[in-house]
């Protein structure tokens, strides 16, 4: 069973995503922000990280950068809110930083599972 780390600050969204992933047979660990995420990451063996991008203090990008530093070929999926909160294109940046894919909210269950499957299959 593969372990997924889910970093999402909105509690309802987190709960929902956990349930979806759980039903699909994954082992899901959750974190409410980037800091907690990195902590859990260090304490566990993670196969895939799914992280929200625009969290307070721009932690999303920072987290990706940090995780990539820790494990350079870490598989990461970045989630976006659908709109830009600032002039920067966070998605592009996430991708530049090494995210394998981005998902735009609101996320359909199907899309999420397809993406997860695809990324996990990546080399």
């Amino acid at each position, binding site marked *: 069973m593969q372990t997924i780390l889910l970093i999402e600050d*909105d509690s*309802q*969204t987190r709960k*929902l*995503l956990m*349930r*979806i992933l759980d*039903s699909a047979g994954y082992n899901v660990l959750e974190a409410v922000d980037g800091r907690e995420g990195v902590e859990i990451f260090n304490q566990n063996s993670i196969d895939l990280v799914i992280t929200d991008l*625009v969290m307070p203090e721009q932690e999303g990008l920072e987290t990706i950068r940090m995780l990539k530093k820790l494990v350079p070929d870490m598989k990461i999926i970045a989630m*976006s*809110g*659908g*709109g*830009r*909160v*600032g*002039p920067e*294109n*966070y*998605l*592009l940046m996430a*991708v*530049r930083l090494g995210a*394998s*894919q*981005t*998902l*735009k*909210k*609101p*996320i*359909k*269950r199907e899309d999420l599972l397809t993406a997860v499957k*695809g990324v996990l*299959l*990546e*080399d």
Partner: protein
Amino acid sequence: MKRIDGNFKIVILLSFLAYVLCYFYLFYYFGYGMGISGIIPVIVLSWYFGFKWGICIGILFLPINIMMISFVGLDLFSGQILSGMIQGTVGFVFIGGAVGHVSDLSQQLKEHRDNLNQLVEEKTADLRQSNELLKKREKDLGTANRQLKESELQIRSTMEQFEASNQQLIASEREVLESKDFLENIFETNLDGIIVGDERGYFVRVNRAIEELSGYSQEELIGKHASEFVVEDKQIQKVKAKESFVPVKGQMRNLELSWYRKDGSVCPLEFNAQYLTDDSGNVVGSVASARDVSVRKKAEADLKESKERLDLSYQATNDGLWDWNIKTDNCFFSPRYYTMLGYEPFEMLPSFETWKSLVYPDDVEQAVQTILNYIEKRSDIYEQELRMQTKSGESRWILARGKIVEWGQEGEPVRMIGIHMDITDRKQIEGEKQQLLEQLRQTQKMEEIGTLAGGVAHDFNNILGVIIGYAEISLDDLPEDSHIREDIKEILIASDRAKNLVNQILTFSRQADHDLKPFRVKPLLEEFLKLIKATFPATIEIRHEIKAESDTVMSDPTQIHQVLMNLFTNAKHAMQEKGGVLEISLTEEIIVKKNKFALPDLIPGKYLKMKVSDTGHGMDAVTMKRVFDPFFTTKDQGKGTGLGLSVVHGIVKSYGGEISVFSEQGKGTTFCVYLPLSETSYPVQKTMLSEKITGGNEHILLVDDEVAICNMTKKTLEKLGYVVTSCTNSIEALELFRRMPDEFNIVITDQTMPNLTGAGLAKELILTRPDIPIILCTGFSETINRNQAMLVGIREYITKPVVKGQLNDAIRKIFDEKHEGR
């Protein structure tokens, strides 16, 4: 009533006689004693007749008594009787006399009184008369007095006048005396030289000024002639030729000549001479004035030099000069004033009206008002920008500046001078700057909206995700036949609508973030090539060179689709008329270092370079600069929104790429698109176009006024297995539909079409056949939104560019719903 008139006298007498008779009777019967009763008539008669009669009557009674006594037979001489008679008679006489006297007196008194009264009256009347006369005299006297006084005054005033005249006379005398001195004074002290000469021109007298001017004294000059001192020149010779130096009858004015001074130096003079004649017209002498004009001469020379300098500067400066006398409307315009507007110098008469006529009609009112305001308010500088018309009818922007330089007696402005500067170029630049500022403002506004939308979207989408997520999960847990499934599906439909709404706002304000996936461009390009070959006119030859090995770009496939679509459509339009060659190439390119000039924003790295060239009409340099501007288009109105290339530009830039254009008018255009290559690779990549899509075989009516798009979409749908009838005219489509409404299963229509928009068409179609499903395709910032479309009865609403998958999904959705019995 004093003396009784005759008749009355007779009456009285008769009465007396009667009495007497009675007396006799009485005497007879009653005796002697009765004689006393005779006193009664005595009294009465004496009262009436007066003193004399009284006496008489008294006396009369004696005889009567005697008679009586005798008659009666008494003894007359008896002592008693006798004494009685005598007594009685005396008594009667006495009483009669007394009474009569009294009566007379009273009568006289009365008469006197009457007389007196009369007199008094007369006298009073006289007095009154005299009084009146006196009064009248008094009045006359008063009048006479007044007249007298007046005459007195007149005399006095006349005397005063006389006195005054006298004084004047005295004064005049004095003045005359003073004048003489005065004239003498004037003559001598006049700064101009005055020469008095005789009839031949010989000097008789000269004033001090002449002495100073010439250097000679009066004594030296008297008797000499002007010609002895004058420097000969042509003019003088001419005058001399007339034989007399002094003008023959008349005057000589402003003759300029030069004069030898005593010390030999030469002095320029202005000379006026005049004949003096006496009353009969004989010439008795001449008078001349001479003025030293050396100062003036110098001033004239200076002025000439200044004027020359001014003329030169007029020629040298690039600005037009104007000089306007506000009162007389005398004007001067420098040559450049005219040439600036394409006229010949001095081609028109300079005046305020001329200036007005040169001003651009729309600006005239304002311009005139400004200059009049300046004159009225006397502000510091007059300045305004206005358009003026050139001879050829064009307008140029002119900066007019000026100032009042001369003032009149009451402080009113009299003269104004200023310049005209041609600022057309400057204005143009300003105009462009304004445009840019405006664009910037627009952009900023959009950004603001976008920022707001973007901020909200994030949280909103989170929430929406939760709603959708749990709805989906719930669906899973419900049995197939549960009626609750319908309700859950409604939740999902509503959530979908919410998602689209937010997306639209984000798209509109360009805040939409797009999902980026690793996407391979090559396959998409290859699909496009196939379509192009099928749909482009035969006159366009298509060449391609696909050499890139890696072609994965982190991108949103929809957007890549948009980029390719726009570039190919533009190329096709450029070569529509005459045909040409379309070249497409896909290569890898490594950017080594930041190139300041060519592609300044590209970070060094690996790029996918796509080149699209056409041999169409090309663009000039000006157009080329603006080709990526939003809404900039060279096409006619209605034939293109001008958004295509600006969208492409935006997309490419957002991926960290770059797009460049090169064009030569008449030769063709080349676009180069650079996109950063992505290192990630996916094991399986499904291109959009070759995704397995389950199509259908329904009959679709397709309406789109852009032929290229219509054809392309038709081909796409046919490939999916549909039967397609296409129309490029919405009205034709309507007519076709009306003819056979049941033939078509679905209508797909564009929104923006001339004459009848997609929404309008939809309305009409639904009137004909209420249950016909309609899909509306709208583009960026179209004039109808989803809700409005739904209200009209449109089933599905797709934003352009239409991607096959999306379109098919929409179609399938409609039919699947149908089959589910909705």
